[in-house]
């Protein structure tokens, strides 16, 4: 068992970095995820299916293509990347932030799907009832809609986190594989498999990946159950 816990500094870095990247990807995409899910679930406008298509694109495109598109647009010379770097000092290329962006984009369709389904399941008559009691649309959303879709939001967050932990293709294309900066667990495992004698390291990181995935799953179960207890639908 000794060899299992005896991680090299680089391996520890990969674990820490992966958790950081996945957490940021999940948290930063959440507001956008809720907004887009709301628009897709409730909106009536021309071009809704186009928006739906764009949101789902990362799910269907080869990850390498998504990564390359990110490189083109968010890279140092890309239109968005150069703008953000110049005016806000935010740089994505070859930084861990870029890895988080790639993971967030790849996980976005999964998050939106989960939240959208829960929004569509909300009984809109409850929202009308809240309106007659004096709540304006913003309050109705905060006090009725949001609590009712909480299980969907949690499910979306967990899916997004899990997807981000495993993201490989888009990340390595966009921000490469720099130990300590952009080398996440999957990239690290990939690197181990490419060098002689790297089997032990690859296995260690694989087992750690499994452990983190299991923990996330259990956490989501516990959360969902707690939410469900306070919110059994009539």
């Amino acid at each position, binding site marked *: 068992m000794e060899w299992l816990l005896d991680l090299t500094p680089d391996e520890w870095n990969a674990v820490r970095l992966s958790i950081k990247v996945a957490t940021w990807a999940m948290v930063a995409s959440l507001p956008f995820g809720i907004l887009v899910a709301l628009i897709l679930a409730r909106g009536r406008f021309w071009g809704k299916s186009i928006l739906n298509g764009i949101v789902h694109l990362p799910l269907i495109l080869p990850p390498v293509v998504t990564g390359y598109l990110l490189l083109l647009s968010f890279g140092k010379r890309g239109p968005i990347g150069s703008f953000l770097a110049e005016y806000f000092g935010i740089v994505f290329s070859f930084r861990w932030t870029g890895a988080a962006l790639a993971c967030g984009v790849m996980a976005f369709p999964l998050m939106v799907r989960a939240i959208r389904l829960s929004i569509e399941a909300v009984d809109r008559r*409850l929202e009308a009832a809240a309106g007659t009691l*004096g709540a304006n*649309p913003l309050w109705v959303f905060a006090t009725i809609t949001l609590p*009712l879709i909480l299980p969907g939001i949690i499910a979306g967050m967990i899916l997004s986190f899990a997807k981000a932990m495993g993201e490989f293709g888009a990340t390595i294309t966009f921000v490469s594989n720099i130990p300590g900066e952009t080398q996440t667990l999957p990239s690290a495992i990939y690197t181990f498999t490419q060098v002689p004698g790297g089997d032990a390291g690859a296995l260690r990181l694989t087992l750690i990946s499994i452990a983190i995935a299991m923990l996330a799953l259990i956490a989501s179960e516990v959360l969902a159950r707690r939410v469900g207890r306070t919110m*059994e639908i*009539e």
Partner: protein
Amino acid sequence: MTLSVDIRHQLGAFELDAAFESNGRLTALFGPSGSGKTSLVNLIGGLIRPDRGRIAVDGRVLADTAARTFLPKHKRRIGYVFQDARLFPHMTVGQNLRYGRFFRPRQERYADLDAVVELLGIGGLLDRRPNLLSGGEKQRVAIGRALIASPQLILMDEPLASLDEARKAEIMPYIERLRDETKIPIVYVSHSISEVARLASDIVVLADGKVTASGSTREIMQRLDLLPEEERAEGGAVLELEIKAHDDAFGLSILRSGESEWRLPRMDAPAGSLVRVRVRARDVMIATERPHGLSAMNILAGKISEITTDDGTEARVKIDCGGDILVSRVTRHSVRALGLETGKSVFAVVKAVTFDKANTASRVEGGTKR
């Protein structure tokens, strides 16, 4: 409080074209299903925007398409009790009740939480979740929730329709208390005569999206022709009688209105209180002389004030018994055989046992004889 509605609204192939004014304490919108009652309260409550027309409460304009005014539902101060209660499943009963108060500025709040809880008998439910309540309890909480938001008007859309008879009987007294003990006017949607006759002070009759009649409950209930076919059997006179005494030996109550005395099954109200009873037209017989040797206990002298017939089997005869108008359904044959005509002195005969829970209300609190 005056509610005035003059609205045209198209819903698919259905056209609602309704105009009425009411200042009753409890105005019933009455009509068969599909007559547009629910659409009408949804328009008043602001859940639907009218195509054309105007809605105002006491001069406060809620919607006026000519002036391009439309007050959204959260600004209307109209409580809405839905048929399906619509309690918020993620809140306790107490949180549901307090929900509307939060949005009401302090100076506009008049409803007292404790008083409402007491009025509706829901004190024991406050910490429960809505999914653990019975249908009747849910509906009482829904009424309380609307009340505590301190509305200027309460809309009730068939609040009893989804409940069984026992639950209806459980809730009706609370709605009566609401009507009699609070000052908030109520608009009550129903297709049930027994509910309307018991609860309403005024009735607006709807059919096919149009108002066919409106007026006081007494007036409308006598007009059997206004009632939908399937409910016509339930129609009749609505009287307010004063309890004189109880005859506990035989389980009867003795009631009076003017000169006429009534004997009805024992009621739960103390002597001296006013009760509302509905005398179904089908239960009233007519005799040209005072009958003897008859089991029926209520024999009232009166004069025929009106006879209406159509080509069918029946005639409707209105009998003025010292100010109370009774309505009787008899065959046209009997009208001919007995020589019934306007102005003729007759006796109206009603069996005491035709009165049951469905057509006798509990006391009219603070009610004064009209």
